[in-house]
């Protein structure tokens, strides 16, 4: 294991060094949902004027965006007891090209009372060999939903397999390095292999008790256009790392994800549909033996009009540390977009928590309504895909 680890780290470092030495061009972020940097439209500084200096420095400022995520919750849920109203997240995005070799992307997530770096990484995008390397803190390419920021999800909440098997609502975020290689298949089919290695984390699915314990992730993605209007996105993921229950205990995670999109190009502004689903499998070594747990969600979203979407979701997941307990849920959503930059969403959700859970020894059912208002200011991000 140690050997594999050192090999992966050396490979990542070697790639980085090659990239820098090769003198590649300004690169950029991976498919982060909101990653579109544009230098602010600063006017060229008048030559020789003293005001010129400050204008020039403004020119190189990163593009800035802030996305607010307000959530109001009604109904009863003693297991996941969300506050009645919260500014759940204020995400500050700072993005710019660093130098001719790299670009940087920061997404700072402010809760009402705490701050965390959701992502902050450097990307080398023009490396030889069709490689893309990211170093820093990032959402791990495990499945599809785990890579999404909260504001681009089609629901106001994370599905149960993420909550139960990926260490909680935040999902799996890691600090380390990521190498992605394009492996085109015949017939213009996109395929990409991503290998990632991450150091110890205080929380999430992988918790290390020592510096030498690292987590790995591998992700293989295939994307094919079935027609001008329909495309299919498939992914396989495998993660392995320490879980912190004892010094050598490991968790292995597997995932299959599939997304089918339909958007007739002529009237695509008014009508489209997405069906997506993921299946997670977790094998967790802990005192008393290995727990093997699974979970899935299946979701469909349909666009009724330019600004209106409806959606349904089914979900189920066992607990990573106790497969005897299984939670299930169903939800329906209605979303209205006043413009590209704001969004109102209502979700009716029923979650059935298996027993024992945090409130009772028996099963517990919660019926809730979640009302979400999201709004973005600043630099225009790429449309989520």
């Amino acid at each position, binding site marked *: 294991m140690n050997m594999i680890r050192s090999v992966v780290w050396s490979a990542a470092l070697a790639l980085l060094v090659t990239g820098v030495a090769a003198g*590649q*061009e*300004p*690169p*950029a*972020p*991976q*498919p*982060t949902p909101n*990653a*579109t*940097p*544009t230098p602010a*439209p600063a006017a060229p500084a008048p030559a020789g004027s003293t005001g010129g200096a400050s204008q020039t420095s403004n020119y190189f400022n990163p593009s800035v965006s802030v996305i607010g995520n307000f959530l109001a919750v009604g109904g009863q849920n003693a297991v996941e007891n969300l506050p009645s109203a919260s500014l759940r997240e204020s995400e500050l995005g700072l993005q710019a090209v660093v130098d001719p070799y790299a*670009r940087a992307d920061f997404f700072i997530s402010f809760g009402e009372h705490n701050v965390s770096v959701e992502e902050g990484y450097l*990307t080398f*995008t*023009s*490396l030889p060999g*069709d*490689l*893309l390397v990211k170093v820093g803190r990032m959402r791990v390419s495990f499945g599809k939903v785990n890579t999404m920021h909260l504001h681009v999800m089609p629901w106001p909440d994370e599905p149960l397999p993420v909550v139960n098997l990926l260490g909680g609502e935040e999902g799996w975020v890691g600090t380390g390095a990521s190498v992605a290689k*394009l492996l*085109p298949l015949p017939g*213009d*089919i*996109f395929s*990409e292999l991503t290998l990632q290695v991450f150091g110890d984390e205080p929380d999430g699915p992988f918790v290390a008790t020592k510096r030498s314990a690292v987590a790995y992730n591998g992700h293989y*993605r295939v*994307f*094919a*256009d079935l027609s*001008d209007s329909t*495309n299919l*996105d498939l992914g396989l993921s495998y993660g392995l790392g320490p879980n912190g229950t004892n010094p050598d205990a490991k968790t292995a995670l597997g995932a299959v994800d599939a997304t089918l*999109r339909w*958007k007739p*190009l*002529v*009237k*695509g*502004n*008014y009508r489209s549909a997405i069906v997506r689903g993921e299946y997670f499998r977790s094998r967790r070594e802990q005192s008393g033996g290995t727990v093997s747990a699974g979970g899935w969600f299946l979701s469909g979203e349909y666009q009724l009009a*330019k*600004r209106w979407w409806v959606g349904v979701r089914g979900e189920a997941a066992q607990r990573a540390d106790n497969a005897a307990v299984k939670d299930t849920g169903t939800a329906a959503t209605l979303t209205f977009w006043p*413009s*590209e*930059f704001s969004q109102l969403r209502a979700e009716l959700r029923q979650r059935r928590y298996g027993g024992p859970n945090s409130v009772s020894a028996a099963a517990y059912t919660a019926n809730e309504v979640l009302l979400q208002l999201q709004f973005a*200011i600043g630099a*225009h991000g*790429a*449309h989520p*895909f």
Partner: protein
Amino acid sequence: MKTTKTLAAAVLLVGLAIPAQAKLRVVTSLQDLASIAEAVGGDRVETVALARGYQDPHFVDAKPSFILKLSRADLLIVAGLELEIGYLPPLIDQSRNEKIHPGNAGYLDASTGCDILQKPTQVVTRAMGDVHPYGNPHYWTDPENGRVIARAVAAKLTELDPVGAAVYQANLAAFQARLTSKEREWDAKMAPFAGTKVVTFHESWPNFAKRFKLEIVGTVEPKPGIPPSPTHTLEIINLIANDKVAVILVEPYFDRKTPDYIAGKTGAAVVTFYPSVGGIPEIKDYFDVFDRNVDAFVNAMKGKVGR
């Protein structure tokens, strides 16, 4: 041994010969840009456009299949002015192709040197809708801007492929000659309608209107990118009645419901105006865009002049 040497020589020759004959791979955001690049590049280039001519160029999905096309591109031609901001930057970032990053030799912003209208003269905010802070990005709807683009493409192709310089110059000359003669034809057809007031769905046509001396007095969208509202629709109905507007120009990718409703109330004709090559299969190249729209406009105006 001799066979091996012969083989090696053959492989070497083939290896050398292929790049010499390989076509320059040009990826464009719009089919219009691909059409111009094809006209100028001729046999020396192969072009592929990301967006289809019948889709809204503001809302193109950042599909991973585009990454493959970009990864192999020698040249990327964009409309610029942030028209592609919703999908292209992350695709370029993931293309692993340093040539096509903005600022490098394989990146051409077609808006450079073109007549760009509606550049904001005051601070812009999103209260104005989907405004483009660098000006209106639908500038290729003026054929003279097409000429500027063709010249820029010829210069860029010559820079990337100096061996083809003469071919590019000849193709450019042919394109320009045809454009000049076509412009005379379009101008002649449109001349009787100089000063005609029109309503458009979206702000896609200021360059076309300027070129052919039409006056755009209103848009069906209350603000760029904001769908029609009942109040604004009423305002447009009144405007059309007061200003005696004869036609409403609608891009193929917008819903005809509101324009048709307005037409029903006012007697104005709804005309589908195609902003791009590929809007319908008959619009095969850049010239067809104007042929089609000019004829559609002239037909719609028949019997409406002097209303």
